[in-house]
């Protein structure tokens, strides 16, 4: 396995880039693994990586129905941040942030963590108060946060609409300087390469169709290309969690919804940070290639179709122009959608399940990408030790029964409102 560096790039270039080795193997499955991870997205790959690296469990397979990183890992708006307020979330996302900050070095793969900062704009005194509470919780937990007034936001982001015409005036913003973006595909590839290096088998184009049971315990998976036995089966299939737990007879507090993302044509640097609009569900950043990456609201109805509807296209672009009037003459290049688990309180699950041998990582709502490293790290811990780490202790399925809803928005049990 080549160690990547500027030197290796130089060396390979001299030989015409014809001597590179595979980033990961394409192995045949073994009959038995200690852990079979279902889903080769960022979370599954990260789980495998940390199982091997942190817990020495290397007899692990990832079973992916398509190609690794082909789901939401490669369809999101690439934002990373750790500005969560609710106990149960705050330190989990901060762990993720800390892992992000060293991820390129750890994986020897540049996942392009760009800590260009993120602004959450506020448009009323009430929103400023809510932002202050969030910022204060972050700071009390050792996470960076700053609250800016209108003048400071205008000084920093002069291209937003501060005119009389703005329907929702900007009152200020909460800012996290360590937040930013990461190159989403690279995250999947980097974890895949890292896991592979530790001996994890990545089995692509193999779809799980059912489970192998021994009594009530799950002891493996059935796939469209044969059975694989396993000590533990771990689901990392956000978007399809309900479908895969249904096969084990489990209903979840999850619905699958469709979230669209948008990219414009590439332009020279225009927006050098991440901006979230507080008056509507909208956020924007600019990729290194130059495309403005826009995100909006859910399509609102349950959907497994990886394509979105026009109302949200209209809504998102209107939000973009309301926030940044200069985008009007810029052009939308492409829009697509990902399907995701929307949970009843907007927060995830990293947990054992009532079915013995089955472990669940899902319910990521909008927040899956930024959670990737910590999700893998905590899930690996949970699988290895059969108990949660304190950072994912609240991400259990029984929290609804107990009344412990981790509801960052305070909107209640309505999946499409989170």
């Amino acid at each position: 396995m080549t160690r990547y560096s500027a030197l290796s790039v130089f060396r390979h270039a001299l030989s015409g880039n014809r001597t590179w080795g595979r980033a990961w193997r394409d192995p045949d499955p073994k009959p038995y693994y200690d852990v079979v991870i279902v889903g080769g997205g960022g979370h599954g790959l990260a789980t495998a990586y940390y199982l091997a690296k942190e817990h020495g469990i290397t007899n692990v397979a990832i079973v992916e129905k398509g190609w690794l990183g082909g789901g939401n890992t490669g369809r999101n708006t690439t934002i990373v941040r750790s500005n969560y307020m609710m106990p149960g979330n705050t330190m989990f996302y901060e762990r993720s942030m800390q892992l992000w900050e060293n991820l390129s070095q750890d994986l020897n793969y540049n996942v392009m963590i760009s800590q260009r900062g993120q602004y959450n704009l506020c448009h009323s005194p009430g929103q400023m108060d809510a932002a202050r509470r969030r910022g204060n919780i972050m700071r009390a937990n050792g996470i960076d946060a700053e609250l800016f007034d209108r003048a400071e936001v205008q000084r920093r982001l002069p291209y937003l609409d501060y005119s009389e015409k703005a329907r929702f005036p900007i009152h200020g913003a909460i800012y996290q300087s360590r937040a930013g973006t990461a190159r989403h595909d690279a995250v999947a590839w980097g974890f895949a390469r890292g896991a592979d290096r530790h001996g994890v088998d990545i089995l692509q184009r193999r779809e799980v169709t059912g489970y192998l049971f021994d009594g009530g315990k799950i002891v493996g998976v059935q796939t469209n290309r044969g059975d694989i036995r396993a000590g533990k089966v771990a689901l990392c299939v956000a978007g399809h969690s309900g479908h895969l737990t249904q096969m084990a007879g489990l209903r979840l507090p999850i619905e699958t919804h469709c979230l669209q993302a948008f990219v414009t044509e590439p332009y020279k640097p225009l927006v050098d940070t991440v901006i979230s609009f507080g008056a509507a569900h909208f956020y924007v950043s600019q990729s290194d290639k130059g495309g403005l990456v826009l995100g909006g609201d859910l399509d609102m109805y349950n959907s497994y179709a990886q394509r979105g509807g026009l109302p949200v296209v209209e809504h998102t672009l209107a939000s973009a122009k309301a926030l940044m009037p200069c985008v009007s003459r810029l052009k939308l290049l492409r829009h697509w959608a990902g399907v995701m688990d929307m949970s009843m309180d907007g927060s995830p699950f990293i947990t054992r399940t009532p079915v013995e041998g089955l472990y669940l990582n899902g319910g990521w709502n909008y927040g899956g990408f930024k959670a990737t490293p910590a999700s893998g790290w905590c899930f690996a811990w949970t699988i290895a030790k059969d108990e949660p780490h304190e950072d994912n202790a609240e991400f259990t399925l029984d929290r609804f029964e107990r009344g412990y809803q981790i509801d960052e928005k305070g909107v209640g049990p309505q999946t499409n409102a989170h």
Partner: protein
Amino acid sequence: MIRINCPVCGLRNETEFTYGADATVSRPAMDENEMKPWLDYVFNRTNPRGWHKEYWHHVQGCRQWLVLERNTLTHEIGACELAREVTE
């Protein structure tokens, strides 16, 4: 653009409606005292891939709640009834 055939107003764009909730779960009776049926009603979902029954509210029309059959994989639309006329 999903188009819904409201039994009162006719075929309309989804923008006139709001999506409500899964219509396959029914609300327990008012005097239900057990916790479990309420937990199931409020939180747990079958979340099917394929045909689904769901509540939509025609907020910019007749303000009726509708039960719509819709395919979550293809976004095909099936029957649509007034919720009040649905018999379980």
